């Protein structure tokens, strides 16, 4: 995990996403900012519904029809991709930004051979012939560790195991050596031993192709093992960012600290597991001020009055808590 040089390849700048619901429009992602450099892994950490997947889909331009970007910029090598035309964005889909979705079982088209699906990026972007694209597909399958790729290139998705399908999806995303790869909970549908293999493969490919990896996850262990930096999300906001080692050792937001305290590894048998009381706010009625204050042991009057913004909270780290200083002494 090297501290890469130069400017970030991807900068997300105050990105907001709105969702239309039957009871009105809600803001699912609120002015989210982060950046990532080539060869580096950033983890977007948060619980279900915090907006992390929505953020990823907004970056690659694949939001569901009910959701839309309400503001902000997504700069890839300095160019705001949100201002590009659909055909310009399609040209970037693959070589610029690529994504691995979480459900490997449904992410492959059931009626097409995996070879045809893996060949498609080459057919679309490099205009290769069927034969040449198929050859590249076999090479990709070999690279991600599918046994007997030449024999299985004509097989259908249902003939592969869950882990193999996730490898195929990773192969697909990495086919054109994207500058930024987003992986949205790439291992949730898999069993534990396979999870480790998939994470290893992702890390290898990231290093090999010098891509920037954005890992979307709710799993603290995955963050600790895989990521260089972490951005913690809560109710559509980023509440804390920093190097993983720093954030995990000395969290500077009460939500991050709550998450870390809930990890069972540090609890002796017989004692009650710690957890964060309450549950995340309904996006229809996010409270004023800090979205976390109802569950926060440190909440005071100012938390209801002022929405905290990310401020520098030590070298290379940010926190969106009015009282982050009180957390520095732990």
């Amino acid at each position, binding site marked *: 995990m090297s501290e890469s040089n130069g400017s970030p390849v991807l900068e997300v700048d105050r990105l907001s996403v709105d969702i239309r619901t039957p009871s009105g429009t809600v803001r699912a992602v609120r002015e989210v900012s982060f950046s990532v450099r080539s060869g580096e892994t950033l983890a977007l950490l948060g619980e279900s519904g915090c907006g992390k997947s929505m953020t990823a889909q907004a970056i690659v331009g694949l939001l569901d029809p009910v959701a839309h970007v309400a503001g902000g910029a997504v700069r890839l090598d300095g160019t705001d991709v949100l201002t590009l035309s659909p055909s310009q964005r399609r040209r970037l889909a693959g070589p610029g930004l*690529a994504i691995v979705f979480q459900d490997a079982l449904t992410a492959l088209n059931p009626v097409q051979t995996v070879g045809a699906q893996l060949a498609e990026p080459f057919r679309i972007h490099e205009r290769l012939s069927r034969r040449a694209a198929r050859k590249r597909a076999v090479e990709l399958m070999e690279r991600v560790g599918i046994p007997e790729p030449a024999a299985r290139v004509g097989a259908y998705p249902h003939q592969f195991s869950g882990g193999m399908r996730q490898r195929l999806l990773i192969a697909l995303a990495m086919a054109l050596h994207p500058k930024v790869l987003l992986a949205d909970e790439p291992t949730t549908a898999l069993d534990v031993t396979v999870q480790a293999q998939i994470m290893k493969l992702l890390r290898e490919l990231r290093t090999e192709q010098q891509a920037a990896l954005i890992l979307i996850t709710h799993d603290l262990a995955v963050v600790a093992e895989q990521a260089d930096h972490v951005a913690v999300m809560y109710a559509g906001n980023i509440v804390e960012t920093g190097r993983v080692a720093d954030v995990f050792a000395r969290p500077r937001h009460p939500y991050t600290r709550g998450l870390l305290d809930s990890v069972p590894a540090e609890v002796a048998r017989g004692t009650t597991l710690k957890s964060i009381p309450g549950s995340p706010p309904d996006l229809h009625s996010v409270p004023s001020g800090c979205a976390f204050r109802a569950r926060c042991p440190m909440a005071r009057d100012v938390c209801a009055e002022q929405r905290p913004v990310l401020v520098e909270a030590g070298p290379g780290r940010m926190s969106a808590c009015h009282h982050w200083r009180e957390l520095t002494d732990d």
Partner: protein
Amino acid sequence: MLTFLRRRIASSAIPLVVVILGVFYLARLTGDPSNLYLPLSATPEMRAEFAARHGFDQPLLVQFGDYLAQVFRLDFGESLRTAEPAADAVLRAFPATLQLAGATMILAILGAIVVGSWAAYRPNSLADRVASFTSTTAASMPDFWFAIMGVLVFAVALGWLPTSGTESAAAWVLPVLTLLIRPFGVLVQVVRGAMVTALSAPYIKVARSKGAGELRVVFGHALRNAAPPALTVAGDLTVGLVNGAVVVETIFGWPGIGKLMITSILQRDFAVLQAAVLVTAITIFALNIVIDACYALLDSRVRQGVTT
């Protein structure tokens, strides 16, 4: 694939015999043919002679046995009315029906794919609502009314199209349009529904993430997944047309199998009726086998008998 076809053909044999049996007995419920073919003044002896000549004096079971034996030798008997072989009459009428059904279904399917996909592309958009309204109207349109109105407007009032015949291309317009309207309406709704489901599947997002254009996404990825339900319904509708579009063939004087069946029932022309039903039934069984083969071609999971 071959085993699959063999099994399907074998399982069609029994229903086919049941169809023959049913038609054989039901046809004879229409009455005694000698009432129609002999003068009113015919003596009982003349009637007996007529019955004996055509084998109607035998017990029904014996008649059926004889008929089955004939059919196995591909002898379908002779028309009571014209004395020509029944098979000739049927084979002369059948192509007209098949052509009409074929032209209609090809247009209906192509039209439904375009309109249904277009409507499904943006659910609840104006395009979708227009397509839904139009297809519901089309699906519930009575074809005899549409046929008569078509003749009235385009043939009688405007004089653009002929009222009947099969020779000129213009003569095909009204019959095809009349037959088309209901299958088109039904298929648009089926295609739309299946496409809405297919287009919201995760693999569609994956296809877009590769930079696939929208045409490729809709027709390359979604359509094939949406095909099975549309295929089922299209098969059903085709069966209805092959059966003989009785109303349309009558209104437009189309010399097809539907018209032949009606005529042979009215004439108590048993041999022709039986041959017509038999040929239609075989066609329908064949059609079902073709449809099953299409499922298998579309989806490898059907081919391999996977249940997921």
